[in-house]
């Protein structure tokens, strides 16, 4: 593998080609906050919290370090005022939908104001950790995304969940950065016994909507 040399926070770092900026930074002991990253999973780049400022030539821009590959001569700033400000806004936006768990912890570190944006509690930031863990590590595909845009949500597919979830004992729960998946799931577990095909939305209050979406007419 070819080696590339770059600068992160003023430190000269040599890494293999194809390494992401996040991996390079962590290898050098520089911490970058993340919510959707897990070393066992392919990068997703959905939370944008790992945003860093890169300069190549004259132009500086913001990229998601978890998906951006290291390149020769790159100058990376992980804690510049611009980056910190962006992370703060991202966290404030995330807190509007899920003000608990790791989102809350990071929010405290970045000194976010929790009431900046109107609350719309979904307790899901669509990081896809549970979905990807289920697909990539467990190879079960019991969870998935449905919908798009503001309607996008995470659901269990009961046909598969019924078989795979008991054996796995909900390893995906511990990954949830909103800290809410375990509680929500616990409430929907009894429904697994239902004979009717039902999909359990993580956003439970949307259950009725979702059932309307997927129900077969008798």
């Amino acid at each position, binding site marked *: 593998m070819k080696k590339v040399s770059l600068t992160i926070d003023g430190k000269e770092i040599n890494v293999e080609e194809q390494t992401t900026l996040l991996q390079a930074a962590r290898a050098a002991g520089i911490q970058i906050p993340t919510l959707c990253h897990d070393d066992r999973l392919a990068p997703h780049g959905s939370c944008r919290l790992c945003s860093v400022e890169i300069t190549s030539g004259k132009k500086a821009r913001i990229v998601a370090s978890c998906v951006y590959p290291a390149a020769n001569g790159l100058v990376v700033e992980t804690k510049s005022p611009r980056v910190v400000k962006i992370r703060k806004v991202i966290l404030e936006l995330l807190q509007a939908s899920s003000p608990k768990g790791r989102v809350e912890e990071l929010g405290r570190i970045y000194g976010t104001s929790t009431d900046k944006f109107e609350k719309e509690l979904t307790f899901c930031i669509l990081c896809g950790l549970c979905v990807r863990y289920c697909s990539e590590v467990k190879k079960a*595909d019991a*969870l*998935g995304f*449905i919908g798009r845009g503001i309607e996008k949500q995470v659901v269990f*597919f009961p*046909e598969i969940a019924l078989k795979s979830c008991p054996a796995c004992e909900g390893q995906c729960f511990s990954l949830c950065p909103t800290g809410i998946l375990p509680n929500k799931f616990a409430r929907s577990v009894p429904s697994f016994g239902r004979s009717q*095909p039902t999909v359990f939305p993580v956003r439970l209050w949307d259950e009725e909507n979702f059932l*309307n979406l*997927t129900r077969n007419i008798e």
Partner: protein
Amino acid sequence: MSQGLAMPKEEATLFIKVKEICAKHQGKSSALIQIMLEIQEEFNWLPREILLWLSEKLNMPLNRVYDIATFYKVFSLIPRGRNLVKVCTGTACHVRKAPVMLRRVTQLLGINPGETSSDLRFTLETVGCLGCCALGPVVVINDEYYSNPTTSELEKLFKECQ
């Protein structure tokens, strides 16, 4: 997943057409969207059993199939009526009183946008721009475009829909 789960016996005949469509595309997972479009052309919607069957047949995780089926607005996971009525609520049509037109259609059909009549005769949808703003407000009934139809014209057109 077991075959039995994906294919209830009483609906086996329903699957013949699906199998034909699937075979036409050599069961390639890359043809999923095309296959679903053709299935929907046949049934007007995508029944859950068919998606389960497809996922198995195309060797594609169910969550991937659902991800795609719920991403595109063209796919419907709930039954749709035999006749599809679209009312344009794009900017130009809005200015040309599309809300009035929508109310008119809603009252005539007795269903709200996004709904299907219980006899599966009509489905009413609102759409963005149809590209023929000069005709606005536009109503599309089974792919036929109508420019600013009056209540009596609509009544007549709906009567012709079986």
